């Protein structure tokens, strides 16, 4: 594996880990009754999300590729994007369903705004993440 791909995979991982950290911190405050001041620490993973997003998706042009209209893509790019979208569709559907079931079965109640925003963000970056992980862009 070349160094660029290795670095890109690493930044994709950092991006997802940061999202998980944001959620963990939020739920620590909500359910364990930690001080709301604890939420200040959310800034660190939030900055990491922004930086890793920029490095893994924006700088590489993957974000542009997954959000471009199909007329602007060539046949290979179209194939890559379609494949990534179909994989991410099933991945996202399964992940969301699992989360909903966990919330229902554990009595956590409804999905809150923070989790919804994180899921919305993941829905957007998932095709780009699959391309960043697999392709030599």
């Amino acid at each position, binding site marked *: 594996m070349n160094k660029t791909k290795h670095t890109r995979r690493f930044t994709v991982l950092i991006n997802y880990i940061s999202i998980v950290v944001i959620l963990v911190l939020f739920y620590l405050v909500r359910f364990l009754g930690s001080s709301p001041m604890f939420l200040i620490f959310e800034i660190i993973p939030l900055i990491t999300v922004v930086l890793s997003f920029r490095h893994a998706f924006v700088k590489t042009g993957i974000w542009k590729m997954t959000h471009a209209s199909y007329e602007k*893509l*060539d*046949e*290979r*790019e179209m194939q890559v994007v379609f494949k990534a979208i179909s994989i991410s569709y099933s991945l996202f559907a399964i992940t969301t369903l699992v989360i909903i079931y966990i919330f229902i079965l554990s009595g956590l109640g409804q999905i809150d705004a923070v989790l919804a925003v994180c899921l919305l963000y993941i829905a957007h970056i998932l095709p780009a993440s699959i391309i960043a992980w697999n392709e*030599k*862009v």
Partner: protein
Amino acid sequence: MRKERGLSRKELAEKIGVNFQTVGYLEREEYNPSLDLAFRICECFDLPIEFIFSTKPMKPLSEELLNLKRGV
């Protein structure tokens, strides 16, 4: 073949209407072009399709020349 014609990846990509990265994928045999793209490439190099694409691995040019000389 591209280098023989003194073309950069970007120049060839513009001529055949693809992204320059796709040219790299084609050259590394990591992507099989559609029939339409294959014909556009052939038109660009002004060569018949069997000179550029083959389902079998291409023989070295020296071997091809030797066969041609021997009339094989």
